[in-house]
């Protein structure tokens, strides 16, 4: 067997092993949920860090995504004289795809990397060992609160993102490009369905993405070699793995939900 082929096989088996390891880690996390109830305050603190602190980037990005989407749609739809449908298309594309996906990607970049780096550094500086020594379960105290916080924060952030995108679309479409305000809303409200678009689109997708991103972030933080180099690699891996997982899962979820 050539060296390259065996290397390729190694990469494949390593990735599989990582996924398996990650799955087992998820079970550990879930098993620690009852024990982490006593650290509710820590969960709230993490919710502040991963959720509230991500609000600015989410809101600004949501606004711009909505604005640019409206701008593009306006020019395309004006070819067909269908600019009045642009509000509806903005709403549908944001609710079904862009809202959860872009929020999750931003979340991975903003909160996921922070979680990985923080846990990695906590391990590098023996803080995790210190917790074990102080008879505090690091999984229940460090990992699960961050996982839960990501799980809770993502759907909320996704809602904020979508609302800002609609607002941005309205700003560009109605205020600047002169689409009729009533038409904008009427077309949107006529087509957007609460169950298929908002619950299945925004909420369910972002719940899954939130779980995946925070799982990957916590997992990378806990398994990386506790050195500055290891932490740097783990942070990169969090973004790469999260992005791939988000987009792949988005396809699967869309195929199932539509």
């Amino acid at each position, binding site marked *: 067997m050539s060296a390259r082929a065996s290397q390729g096989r190694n990469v494949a088996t390593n990735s599989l092993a990582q996924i398996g390891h990650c799955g087992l880690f998820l079970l550990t996390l879930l098993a620690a949920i009852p024990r982490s109830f006593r650290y509710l*305050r820590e969960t*709230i*603190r993490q*919710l*502040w860090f991963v*959720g*509230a602190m991500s*609000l600015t980037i989410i809101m600004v990005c949501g606004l711009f995504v909505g604005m640019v989407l409206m701008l593009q749609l306006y020019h395309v*739809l004006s070819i*067909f*004289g*269908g*600019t*009045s*449908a642009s509000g*509806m298309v903005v*709403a549908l594309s944001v*609710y079904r795809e862009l809202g959860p996906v872009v929020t999750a990607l931003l979340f991975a970049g903003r909160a996921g990397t922070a979680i990985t780096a923080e846990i990695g550094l906590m391990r590098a500086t023996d803080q995790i060992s210190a917790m074990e020594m102080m008879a505090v379960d690091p999984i229940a105290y460090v990992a699960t609160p961050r996982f839960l916080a990501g799980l*809770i*924060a993502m*759907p*909320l*952030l996704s*809602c*904020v993102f*979508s*609302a800002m995108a*609609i607002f941005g679309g309205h700003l560009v479409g109605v205020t600047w490009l002169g689409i*009729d305000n*009533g*038409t904008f*809303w*009427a*077309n*949107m*409200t*006529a*087509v*957007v*369905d*609460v169950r298929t*678009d*908002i619950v299945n689109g*925004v*909420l369910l997708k972002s719940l899954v993405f939130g779980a995946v991103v925070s799982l990957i972030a916590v997992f990378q933080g806990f398994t990386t070699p506790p050195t500055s180099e290891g932490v740097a690699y783990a942070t990169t891996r969090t973004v790469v793995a999260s992005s791939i997982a988000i987009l792949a899962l988005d396809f699967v979820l869309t195929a199932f939900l539509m």
Partner: protein
Amino acid sequence: MSQARSSYAIGTGLFIVLGFAALAYLATQTSSLANVHQGDSYTVKAEFTNIGQLKERAPVKIAGVRVGQVQSIALASDHDVADVTLSIDKRYNHIPRDSVATIFTSGLLGDQYVGIEYGQAKQVVAAGGSLARTKSSQPLEEMLGKFFGAGGVVDNVGGSYAVTADFTNVGTLSVGAPVKMAGVVIGRVQSVRVDPVKLNARVVLAIDKRYNQIPDDSSAAVFTSGLIGSQYVAIQPGGSPDALKNGDEMILTQSAMQLEDLIGKFMVNGSPGDKKDAGDGKK
């Protein structure tokens, strides 16, 4: 630290409230729920001969302002008209009895809605009353024709007439290709078939009814837009006082240049002037 802690809790609480507020906004203001929840309303009936794509919960507008929604649509029991029940907000209870209810389309791709234009009558429509004067949904094809004029798609159902032309060779001319006069699109190729008797291509051209003054001795040629572009039919007006009518046949035709011929001419006479000559020669 306890102060810092409570500020975390407050900030996190605000974040959660904001998230849920955004969710509530999405669910109630931008979705179909927005159409369900409305204040007190009264119903008015209207009969339409054709409602097109009108759906229940479609908006009812006066002067572009949403005043209510379509509550129900049913076929009248006795004759072939649609009974549409409009649910209108109580605040707008001054609609004159002779107002006209029209089914409009919002934009080209938008859904249809009911527009009410005020009449002159002093009496207003009472709750449960009906609007006698209605305008039915306009066929989409007419709308399209109006929207695009000569520049775009020409409707081929109501607004055009058919003319046939025989070509010895149509090249790659396909159904739907434009028919142009003086470079302006005036119609579409409706069908391309081989005539079983004459063994040439019989092309049916659908020409917009607005262009009904084309002389009947006009010629038709199959041109290519650019060297590798798609092919289209160009009509060169003749001098006859009689105009082409539906079902007429165009006698003078010029078939498509074979690409091989074009290239051959290029290769032999490769100068731009010759190319121009070749183009002119086609006409």
